């Protein structure tokens, strides 16, 4: 609105409305519209230009490359049409990477959601040492996936006798488990899921704490008057429904972040012999396809485009399904 008013010439028919609006917008009294657009681009231009160059240009280039046979080159000449897409979509490894993602999401999203919500509710009701517990649960956020994977792989879930998990199991007389190389049963999932759970639960706990603090205390007073017992009843009928907007955001973020999983898979599972054939999420698959020995950038780009489309569709669908923007009710 203000922008349109600013476009009107100072002496034109819209001058009065514009002058009125200008009084509300600092600076406009001293600057004409041309000077204002100049200043807008001085402030926004460097950022917008960089974002275009490093997000939109690569995406466009990627779409272009995906139609070519581009081994080891970024200026290919061998047009293959949809060939890269069809070979990507019929490649069992690519499809199983999507399956890996689905399975990972199935584990990590409910686990993180439940743990971070439980931590938030418990910490929120503490009467002492609240800051201490919040810090302890939030502290892993400072740790990198690389360091966490190192601890999990070489100490906590080390497959040898001196690994902590095997030590504890040994106290109860259980056998040693090679956590990361056993595929039947697939114990590696326990290792992968607990790393991420430890790293991110505190972050989502903070989001839930913020949500809890926005709930009006009057709601709880009213519930108490109505005879609701503190504990499960109050949680189910007051707290949980009131956290709806936060829950939607948390689930969306969890799924998007699970889709982008790379660091912990790569650092936990790859070793001197390379990456095992199982548990390859999409980004790990893409990494080895596009940047591995073959450097098949055409195929890798087609994969990137397919993943970008999936994530866009999934985000919109999920937002619709979970009712984002319906938080007024």
């Amino acid at each position: 609105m203000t922008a349109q008013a600013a476009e009107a010439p100072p002496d034109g028919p819209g001058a009065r409305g514009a002058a009125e609006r200008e009084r509300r917008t600092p600076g406009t009294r001293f600057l004409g519209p041309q000077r204002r657009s100049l200043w807008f681009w001085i402030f926004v231009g460097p950022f917008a230009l960089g974002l275009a160059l490093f997000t939109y240009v690569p995406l466009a280039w990627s779409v272009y490359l995906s139609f070519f046979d581009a081994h080891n080159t970024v200026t290919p000449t061998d047009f293959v049409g949809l060939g890269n897409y069809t070979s990507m979509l019929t490649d069992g490894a690519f499809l199983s990477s999507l399956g890996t993602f689905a399975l990972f999401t199935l584990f990590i999203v409910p686990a993180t959601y439940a743990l971070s919500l439980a931590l938030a509710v418990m910490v929120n009701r503490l009467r002492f040492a609240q800051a201490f517990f919040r810090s302890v649960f939030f502290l892993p956020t400072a740790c990198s996936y690389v360091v966490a994977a190192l601890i999990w792989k070489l100490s906590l879930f080390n497959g040898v006798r001196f690994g902590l998990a095997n030590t504890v199991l040994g106290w109860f007389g259980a056998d040693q488990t090679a956590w990361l190389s056993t595929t039947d049963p697939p114990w590696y999932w326990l290792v992968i899921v607990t790393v991420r759970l430890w790293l991110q639960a505190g972050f989502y706990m903070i989001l839930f704490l913020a949500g809890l603090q926005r709930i009006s205390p009057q709601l709880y007073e009213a519930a108490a008057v109505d005879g609701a017992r503190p504990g499960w009843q109050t949680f189910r009928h007051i707290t949980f429904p009131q956290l709806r907007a936060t829950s939607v955001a948390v689930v969306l973020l969890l799924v998007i972040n699970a889709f982008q999983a790379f660091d912990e898979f790569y650092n936990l599972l790859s070793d001197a012999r390379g990456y095992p054939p199982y548990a390859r999420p999409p980004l790990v698959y893409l990494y080895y396809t596009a940047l591995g020995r073959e450097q098949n950038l055409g195929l890798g780009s087609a994969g990137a485009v397919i993943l970008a489309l999936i994530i866009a569709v999934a985000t919109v669908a999920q937002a619709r399904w979970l009712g984002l923007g319906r938080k007024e009710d």
Partner: protein
Amino acid sequence: MHHAWIRVGRALRAALLCALALLFLVPFYLLVRNGLATEAEITAPNWTFFPRRLQWSHLTEVFADPNLPLGRALLNSTLIAVSTTLGTVLLASLAGYGLARIPYRGANAVFYAILGTLMVPAAVTFVPSFVLVSSLGWISTLRGLVIPTLFSAFACFIFRQYFLGFPRELEDAARVDGLGYWRTYWRIVVPNSRPVFAAVATIVFIGAWNAFLWPLVIGQDQEAWTVQVALSTFTTAQNLNLHELFVAAAVSIAPLVVVFLLLQRYIVAGVERSGIDD
């Protein structure tokens, strides 16, 4: 009777929280214990809860090991994290202010174009971005590691939301004194917005220090390794002593833990401010 149950419930909850807190601290314990124990103590069949003698000499040993370029990697990580933080905060705050406060016809279109990139996660664009950076000849350079990561739509969004709520009276006073947009921004807006700058800066710094995929793809030469890439190389190759690897990992997160504990309230404010749940 009723009150007794409430007290039991409260005690149970406190006990559960304490147990969970201990569980959350186990990885940090392992980091310190393995870093300061002898190799024999780490690999012994019987668990030693705490090293008999703390091997502080491991700290000097790990920096002197020619196989592990830890000093160089820490320097690279520091340079990258500091320049990424300064660059991101400068670019995103200017853009956020422009979008929030300078009336311009195309402002909304520009804002949605920026917001749209949040739908395309950076990790999905790593193949095309790699293509771009390698054709610029930026592989294994500081430029290549920093510049493509400077344009954070997320940071820009936080600044825009914050500046929309910045008190106009302060800016109006500056106008009366004859200051333009540029000087108003630097003399009035920035000095009065320190908490939001601190929040974004700490979040960006932690993210840049812990980043892995981009430094792995771009920092290919050993001279360009960040501390994460160096640690990862030895975690996956397993040709280093355990105590060395753990003490190196402890060194790599020590500065961050300190920053984190000191600036925690800004980080919490930043997470809450991100507006994703509003």
